[in-house]
């Protein structure tokens, strides 16, 4: 009997199977790591939280320009004049929506301030006619999502010992980006479910589906 199979190297199957198991484990772990990447942004990714004691995904998003009836400048109000976000968006701490300030609030200042500007004159004309401007929503979540500003402000601002109310801007910017540098607001965070989930995981927010889905 001529057996000449020594020249043909057969693969040692035990070693091979161990290798395969190892590779399998690597794949599983890699998947998990990838999964972690998708779900949880570690400290090295976040450029230092602006809100102390929190971590959140610093995902940038380039929104589209949404035209508004009046070219309201957040930069002038919140940036240059450092008006607190909640001065105008006064409902944010009391309701799920932050709200657009009522026209009377605008007119509270603009009967005296900057009355010569064309945009302000537009505003004044509307006020005199008793009309409200029809703003276009920039940060609009789908209708099956329940998001409440009230709870988030409490969690990150009012319950945060290192911040006081004047730091509202820092909390708002978690989801809205640096509005104070914008003129007309533009969406600068993706506000997708993944975005929400990552922040909830990082900050131990509720993970129950019905918290956010209605």
């Amino acid at each position, binding site marked *: 009997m001529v057996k000449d199979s020594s020249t043909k190297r057969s693969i040692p199957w035990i070693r091979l199977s161990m290798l395969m198991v190892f590779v399998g484990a690597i794949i599983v772990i890699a998947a998990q790591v990838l999964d972690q990447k998708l779900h949880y942004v570690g400290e090295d990714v976040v450029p230092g939280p602006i809100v102390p004691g929190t971590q959140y995904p610093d995902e940038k998003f380039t929104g589209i320009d949404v035209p508004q009836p009046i070219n309201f400048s957040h930069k002038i109000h919140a940036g240059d004049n450092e008006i607190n976000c909640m001065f105008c968006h006064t409902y944010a701490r*009391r309701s799920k929506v932050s*709200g657009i300030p*009522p026209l009377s609030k605008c007119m509270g200042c603009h009967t005296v301030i900057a009355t010569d500007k064309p945009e302000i004159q537009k505003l004044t004309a509307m006020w005199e006619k008793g009309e409200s401007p029809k*703003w276009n929503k*920039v940060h*609009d979540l*789908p209708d099956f999502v329940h998001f409440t500003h009230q709870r988030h402000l409490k969690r990150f601002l009012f319950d945060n010992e290192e911040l006081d109310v004047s730091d509202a801007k820092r909390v708002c910017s978690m989801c809205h980006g640096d509005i104070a540098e914008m003129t007309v607001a533009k969406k600068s965070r993706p506000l997708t479910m993944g975005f929400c989930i990552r922040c909830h995981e990082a900050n131990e927010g509720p993970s129950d589906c019905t918290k956010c889905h209605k």
Partner: protein
Amino acid sequence: MSQVKSGEIKTMSQSKLDRRQFLKGLGLGGAGVALAGCDLPSYVTLEQGEENVISYLAPDEYVIPGVGVWYASTCLGCAGGCSIHGRVREGRVLKLEGNPDSSVNMGRLCQMGQATLQSHFNPDRIANPLVRKNGSLVEASWDDALSLINEKANSGKAAWATGAISGHQRVVVETHLSAIGGSNHYAIEQINANVWQTACGDIIGDPNPEIHLDKAKVIFSLGADFLATFISPVHFAAHYGEFRSVPRGTLIQAEPAMSLTGGNADHWVGIKPGTETSLALGVANALMNKHGISGSGISNATKSLINEHDPATAASICDVPADRIEKIAASLAANSPSIVLAGGTATANANGYSAAAAALMLNQILGNIGVTITSGRELAYPQLGLIEGNSANLKDLAVDANKGKIDVLFVSGTNPLFLAPKSIKMDEGWNKIGFKVVLSSMLDETASAADVVLPLASSLEDWGSHIPAYSTGTRNLALQQPLMEPVFSNTRGFGDVVLGLAKQAGAPGLDEYDDYYGYLRSAISVLKKTDSEKEWNSFLMAGQTPVPSLGRKLSYIDGKISQTANTATDGGLTLIASARMGMWDGRGANLPWLQESPDQISKVVWDSWAELHPKTAKSLGIKDGDYVTIKSSNGEITTRAFIYKGIHPGAIAVPIGRGHSALGRYAKNNGVNPLFILDGGVDAKTGEIATAATRVEVKNAGKNKPLAKLMEIDRQHGRKLVATISADKQRITEGGT
């Protein structure tokens, strides 16, 4: 606020839903009405700039977008006058709840109250005034319509037809009526307790006594459907809840066709239509002869009537086994206090008044008067009081119209052309009226036949004050206030319109009021003797305010039982036009929620049905779902058979409320109206149209199409679904005697 141009969104199914429409009205929408299906991949722009937000001009402090505000008002679903709270968010009223402080409904609400929202948001509401030109109604401006009325209304004999009406609306209507020189005010309500109330007024001296169901241990009800259609159903249902608490009371219901109350009875007595008086007499006989009840205060004439009706005799008249009559008597004798009521089908025949009188007689001999039936309170300002309305007025209206006694008719809150049996010739009378003005928010049968139709605001957009049909203790004035801006901007409130008409007709003393709100406010400040803003606001918040009332005294005057059995119903089948909670007298037919809410007993939706006993059905060759033709001397209707054992074999019951030829997309051409073929019989004493006394012939129309029902089965098939326990065992564990 003007209507906003829409931003449309697409669902995955490509259906477009115009979301901006939701936010019409006051304002700022935090979240529009939600749609599922926008499952966008992660990094797709989420609806940027596709929705608009309108800011408030200068909002009230308590208005917060995204947070509902509750406003108090009054439900006008029926004459019950329940107080309600309406949840308002972003300027839209979303949900109604009962007002917990109300002594009428204690925070609860019936299905009709819940569904009032849909009469408010109904797509078939009248948006603009309509004026008849060349035979058809065309849209017109308010000025045109009002000037036309001004031109025609002041010449001739004028009259008003309304539903139940109370409070300041009643005052302005009557002011207007007198200003245009009329005197007849027909308050029409098909579903009422007029016979019972008349009998109470005559016999115990209080037409609206307090009925303490919660204190009774036994309720013996002759057809009174107090859980659904009797005076103030929610109030009684609330007390029924107490009645069913420990110690638990027993409910005995005697009626020819099962009502909701009958559906809850411990003992349901299917009685031959029109023989309730005999049953009551039979029970009285057993009580006096077997249980030694003395029968104080009963006249000899009545006693002899009672003696004629020993249980066996009564049993043969009523088609009820004698031992059941004795059982009822035994139950009444053993459990005191009890209460005996009469209403519904028992009073809807020629001797209905006798049945009510017999019920009161039973109360008298059982000693219930003053215990479970106590004196009510009378309003100190009778001009504000509730005109309950009845169907006798409907007949009067037809008769007067036919006699040419009416030249100008104003109608609001009732639908005489739908409610009137053909036999009273309302159609002909209607055409003899020279000028008909209908104030309505829906284009019902009557409005379609009017010369001028004035579009009313819905009950949730309007101001008003109401006296509830029934309440215990102090009497309250219930406030009706608008919960949102008008859905249809060119509609006006009832009070505003009538006030305007009255002013136009030159009624004195009204010129100082710009609108009905001003009138109402000043009138109430007179009533409350204060004009302070705070007082007014607390009134708005409470939704009701006590008004002075006077006590009454109860007495007992016997001898009102005359006729004992309605011989007209012997033999053949008797048509019972049964009143149901839901469609009510037809006003619920345009509300899809009520159409789709199954009838409590038959569980039928979206159509009429004819209840038949299996025995009768078998003899007539009718199966469940067969079309049957019901023919009376005044015409015929065809509807489908519902066969079950909750009806006397000698009766056929068809519910009231459907069979509209107008009233919008949901009501039109849906079901049949049994009122049309009633033969014109009335209760001998009150003149109420007898809805349960028409002889009919029933034939199989030869087609079969199963009814749309919630359930196709009547039995539990051995499953433990509704488990039942006997009252004796329940008493052992939960107490009570």
